[in-house]
């Protein structure tokens, strides 16, 4: 929210979780703030605010990105998926369900970001080994779980797919 006095406005058109949105926004608004403050989609979290922790991970045009490092205006014309848009009509998606079944969630703050990173990763690598899973989650930091059960959950999701 710095430098608001200098800001110009931008007419943003973007698809979020399947819904087309048209909204005037300040040019300096970060994508994370647009999602959390403007759209009230609070699944993406802010922790470090500088691209280290991955708690603000969303999928932009199918790719995992840190929404704290992107101006909302940069997403113009794009497609965004947040954790709120992941569940299907029949309930949680399989990655979400595996995280619950394998007890991969403790405080939960990092989990929306983790799950979206996993979503993209499994599309590229449907049958990963544990080392590949760890490498894929390098950008998502968790201070509770020790990662073991997170890796279990990803491995089990892949096995069931």
């Amino acid at each position, binding site marked *: 929210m710095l430098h608001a006095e200098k800001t110009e406005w931008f007419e943003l058109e973007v698809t979020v979780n399947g819904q087309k949105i048209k909204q005037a926004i300040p*040019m300096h608004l970060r994508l994370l703030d647009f999602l959390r403050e403007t759209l009230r989609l609070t699944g993406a979290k802010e922790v470090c605010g500088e691209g280290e922790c991955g708690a603000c991970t969303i999928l932009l045009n199918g*790719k995992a990105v840190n929404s704290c*490092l992107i101006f909302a205006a940069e997403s113009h014309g794009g497609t965004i998926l947040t954790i709120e848009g992941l569940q299907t009509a029949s309930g949680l998606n399989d990655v979400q369900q595996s995280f619950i079944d394998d007890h991969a969630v403790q405080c939960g703050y990092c989990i929306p970001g983790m799950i979206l990173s996993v979503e993209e990763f499994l599309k590229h690598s449907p049958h990963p080994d544990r080392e590949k899973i760890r490498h894929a989650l390098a950008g998502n930091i968790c201070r509770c779980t020790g990662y073991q059960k997170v890796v279990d959950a990803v491995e089990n999701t892949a096995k069931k797919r």
Partner: protein
Amino acid sequence: MKIYQPYGLGDCLDLLSELPQAETVILAGGTDLMPRYEQGKVLPEHLINIKHLADLQGITETENGAEIGGLTTIETLRRSGLIHRDYPALWQSTEQFAGVQIRNRATLAGNIANASPAGDTLSPLYLYHAKLKLMSRHATRTIRLEDFIAGPGETTQERGELIHSIILPRVTGSSCFYKLGLREAMAISVVNYALRYSQSAGELTDLEITAGAVAPTIVFLDALTTAVLSGETNSTVWRALIGQDIAPIDDIRASADYRRKVLGRLITHHLQNLGVVCHE
């Protein structure tokens, strides 16, 4: 602040030449720019988001090597069979580059333009004698990467210029990249180096090494490689020769002394185990 989002290269070059240079910043991946903007260290009046320029995307195999569009992301390089096969040191640097969220946004030209002494793709790009194609509204020029980077955060980029692409010549021999960070993932280099060599009948016929995070820019360890090629085998001498080409500093990640010691030990170990550590 105003963000411009040109779709055509011509429009972008017009903007770059017309907007006041001191108040204009180019936004590519944004992964380094955004934290600096949020901290108030960079406060541009005009921000040109170049992400939509199709001309600056992609990796092409050429007659003499490869040309990489400036906006090619680190993740695209990591997934490239061509880079993996022909430029393994560059490929290895992308494999250890931050996390996927950063790699999906960060661009090769961005890593170059930031001119960080610890920029992970830079040691491999120096090793492969990369050149840059720079474009402005009025001219296009090609310069060596080492003539472009002038110091930490400093380049010889001229007013109105954009990094169009990175040109890599064809490479002979084997090459690889090594990075030492304070942890395995999401770490900035304490030291890194890239190494290329050729052998014939068990004899070393060619050797080049570049090192990062040990001087204001990437350096070639020429004193060392010249001696090794002349048959010098004493590792104490090697370490002294490495010292001639580097000028490390103390910073939050490590002391100058540690950097000097650890680089010497790593490269000594590497040269004594070439075929194993840097396999074909």
